[in-house]
C-alpha cells in the first residue's frame, strides 16, 4: 500500500492551534502598533524657522463640484495675498500649496495626508461636501493638524482639529425653516443629493417639522452629479406641497431647476428654498430658471457694509469685474484671517497653542463680526434669507436679529433631542 498522508484528527488540532496562535500574534502586533501610533506624539514637520510659512489649499478643481470649489480657492488666495501685503503672519510670508480634491472624498483624504506629511503645512483650508470633510476628519485627527472648513453643513460634529467657518444647522437651516413657517408653509417636499449632508439635514428638518406641525409630503434623493430629474420633479408637482427644501449639490441643481421650470412650477406657488445655490451657481443654472427662488445663507454679495464693499471690490479687481462673491468664498476668506489672527494671539503656529488661543478670536468680516467659539470650533454668524433676482444676485429679504451662537449638536432645541450623531 503506498504511503499516503492521512490527515488525522490530532493533525487538524495542531494546525488549528497554530493558526489561532499566528492570528493572535498578528492581531496583537497590529493593535500594538496602532495604539503606539495613537498615543505617541505625532511629530509635526511644520518648518517655522524661515521667512515663509506653508499652508494648504485643498479644493475640487475638477469634477462635479468644481463649479463651486474653484471660487473658494480664489478667495483663499485673495486673503493670503492681502495678509502677506500687510506684513504676513508673525512676520512670515504665507506660501500656499494647492491640491485638487477632484470632487472625490478619497482624493481629499489622500491629498490632505500629503499636504500634512510631505508639504508640512501649518493648516489646510478647503473641502466643500460633507463627504469630503468626513473623509478628511480622521486624517487631520490622526496627524494632529488643522483644517479650516468654509462651507455650511449639517452639524452634529465638533472636531478638535477642524475649525468650521461655515454655518451649522442652527445658523442656516433652522432659520430658513422658521422663515418658511412664518410665511405660512404647511407642507414641505425635501429634495437632496444622496450623501451625508442632505440625509442629516433632512433628518433635522423632519424632527423640526414634527414639532411645529409641518407636513413632509415627500423626501427624494438623487445621486451626486445626477442630471435626470424628471421623476423627482413629477412627484414634487403631483404632491402639491407648499414649498420645496432643496439640498442638491453641484451640477444637479442645473438640471433640477430646468426641469422644475419646464414642468410649469413657479416660485410664487411652490418656492424652492436652497442651501447650496449661491451667486456662482445662478449663472450655470440660468437666471430665467431660478428667478424669485429663495436661498438660506449668512452672506450675499449685495450686503451693504464697508467691510463687504472693500472685499467685493478687491475680489473683482483681482479676478475680473464679472466675477461674483458667495457665502462659502467669504467664509473661506474669513477662515484665513481667523487662522492668522489666532496665530498672532497665540504667538505660535503650533496646533495645541492655536486650539488653546482660538476662543474669542474675532474678525470684521464682510458678513459682520464673526467670533470663534473655542469649545465647538464654530463661529457666530447672522442668518440671512435671500431672493434671487433678475440680475443674478441674491438680495436679503430677512435676517436674524444678530449673530447666532453656533450650536452644532442642537443642544438648545428640545425637538432635536432624539437626533443621533450619524457617523
Amino acid at each position, binding site marked *: 500500500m503506498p504511503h499516503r498522508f492521512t490527515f488525522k484528527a490530532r493533525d487538524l488540532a495542531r494546525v488549528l492551534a497554530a493558526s489561532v496562535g499566528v492570528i493572535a500574534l498578528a492581531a496583537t502586533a497590529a493593535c500594538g502598533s496602532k495604539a503606539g501610533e495613537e498615543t505617541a506624539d505625532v511629530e509635526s514637520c511644520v518648518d517655522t524657522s524661515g521667512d515663509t510659512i506653508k499652508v494648504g489649499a485643498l479644493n475640487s478643481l475638477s469634477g462635479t463640484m468644481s463649479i463651486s470649489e474653484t471660487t473658494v480657492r480664489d478667495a483663499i488666495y485673495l486673503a493670503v495675498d492681502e495678509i502677506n501685503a500687510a506684513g504676513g503672519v508673525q512676520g512670515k510670508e504665507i506660501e500656499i500649496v494647492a491640491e485638487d480634491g477632484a470632487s472625490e472624498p478619497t482624493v481629499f483624504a489622500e491629498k490632505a495626508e500629503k499636504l500634512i506629511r510631505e508639504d508640512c503645512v501649518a493648516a489646510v483650508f478647503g473641502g466643500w461636501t460633507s463627504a469630503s470633510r468626513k473623509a478628511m476628519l480622521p486624517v487631520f485627527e490622526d496627524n494632529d493638524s488643522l483644517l479650516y472648513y468654509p462651507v455650511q453643513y449639517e452639524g452634529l460634529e465638533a472636531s478638535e482639529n477642524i475649525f468650521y467657518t461655515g454655518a451649522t444647522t442652527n445658523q442656516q437651516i433652522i432659520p430658513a425653516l422658521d422663515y418658511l413657517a412664518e410665511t405660512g408653509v404647511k407642507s414641505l417636499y425635501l429634495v437632496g443629493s444622496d450623501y451625508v449632508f442632505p440625509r442629516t439635514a433632512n433628518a433635522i428638518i423632519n424632527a423640526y417639522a414634527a414639532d411645529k406641525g409641518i407636513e413632509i409630503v415627500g423626501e427624494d434623493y438623487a445621486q451626486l452629479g445626477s442630471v435626470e430629474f*424628471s421623476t423627482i420633479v413629477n412627484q414634487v408637482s403631483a404632491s402639491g406641497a407648499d414649498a420645496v427644501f432643496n439640498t442638491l449639490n453641484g451640477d444637479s441643481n*442645473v438640471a433640477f431647476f430646468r426641469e422644475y421650470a419646464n414642468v410649469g412650477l413657479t416660485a410664487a406657488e411652490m418656492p424652492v428654498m436652497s442651501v447650496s445655490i449661491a451667486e456662482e451657481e445662478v449663472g450655470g443654472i440660468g437666471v430665467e430658471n431660478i428667478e424669485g427662488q429663495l436661498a438660506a445663507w449668512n452672506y450675499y454679495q449685495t450686503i451693504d457694509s464697508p467691510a463687504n464693499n472693500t472685499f467685493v471690490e478687491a475680489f473683482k479687481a483681482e479676478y475680473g469685474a464679472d466675477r461674483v462673491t458667495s457665502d462659502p468664498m467669504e467664509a473661506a476668506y474669513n477662515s484665513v484671517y481667523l487662522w492668522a489672527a489666532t496665530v498672532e494671539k497665540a504667538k505660535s503656529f503650533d496646533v495645541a497653542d492655536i486650539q488653546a488661543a482660538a476662543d474669542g478670536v474675532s474678525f470684521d468680516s464682510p458678513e459682520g463680526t464673526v467670533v470663534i467659539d473655542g469649545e465647538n470650533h464654530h463661529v457666530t454668524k447672522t442668518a440671512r434669507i435671500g431672493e434671487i433676482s433678475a440680475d443674478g444676485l441674491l438680495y436679503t429679504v430677512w435676517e436674524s436679529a444678530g449673530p447666532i451662537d453656533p450650536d452644532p449638536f442642537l443642544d438648545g432645541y428640545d425637538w432635536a433631542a432624539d437626533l443621533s450623531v450619524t457617523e
Partner: protein
Amino acid sequence: MDLFIGQLFTGLSTGSILLLAALGLSLTYGQMGVINMAHGEFIMAGCYTAYVTQQVVGDAGVSLLIALPIGFLVGGAMGLILEAVLIRHLYHRPLDTLLVTFGVGLVLQQVARDVFGAPAVNVTVPEFLRGGVDLLGATVPKTRLFIMALSIVAVTAVTLVMRFTPAGRRIRAVVGNRDLAETAGISSRTVDAGTFFIGSGLAGVAGVALTLIGSTSPTTGQSYLVDAFLVVVAGGMGRIKGAVVAAVALGTFQAVFETYSTASLAKVGVFIVIVVFLQLRPQGLFTLRTRSLA
C-alpha cells in the same frame, strides 16, 4: 398632475435620450465590434459644439438648429480621426481598443477642461422650447418632446440610409460577411471608416440635444456611456431595432422603479433586470443572423 401619466412620459423621454446616446454606439460597437469608450466624450463634444455655436450665433433657437448638423460633423470628424489614427490598427484586439479609447476619452475630457474650464457652462434653451405641454393630464416639458422627436428622426434617417442607399448596403454587406463583401469589391476599410463617421456623428447630435436637459461640463459624457453600452448589448449587437426596443424598455423600467424608490435603487433595479435578461438570452433581443464564420 397625474403622476402615472407623467412617469410614462418620463420613461419615454429617458428612453429617447438613451436611444440617441446609444444609436451611434449601436453602429460602432454593434456592427463593427469596436468598443469605443470615448463615445461619451463624443457626446460631450456635441454638447460643447452647441455651446460654442450659441456663443457665436447668439440666438438660442437658431443656434440649436444650426448646431445639430454641425454637431454631427464634429462628432463624425472626431470619430474618423480616431478610427484612422488608432482603431484601424487594433481591429482584432478588442481589449486593446477598449483601453486605448478609454485613454482617448480621458484626454478629451482634459482638453475640454483646459479649453472651456472645469465648471459647467450654460447653454440657454430657446424660447420656443421653454415650458411644458399638457398631454393627457401631465405636463411634459417641450425640451423632452423635442428630444423624442429628434430620436425618431435619427432612427428613421439611419434606417433609411441603411436600407436604401448604396453606402448603407455596403455597410450591411461588410457587417454581414466581411470577407465575402471584400471579394465583391467593397473596400471594407473605407466602409468601416464611414460607419465610424456616422456612429460618432450621431453621438455629436445626441450631445447637442442633451444640452437642453442637463449641464454641459467635461464629465457630461460619462453619465451616458454605460447606459449606451447597456442598450446596445441588451438590444442585440448589430440591430438598430434592438437598440430602439431596449432603450425604450430600459427608460420605462427606470422611470417605473424610480417612482417607488430612489434614483440609485432604480438604477440597481435596471441593472438586475438586464443581468437576468442576458443570462436567459445572452445574444440580446434581436440578433443578426449571418453565415459568416467570424
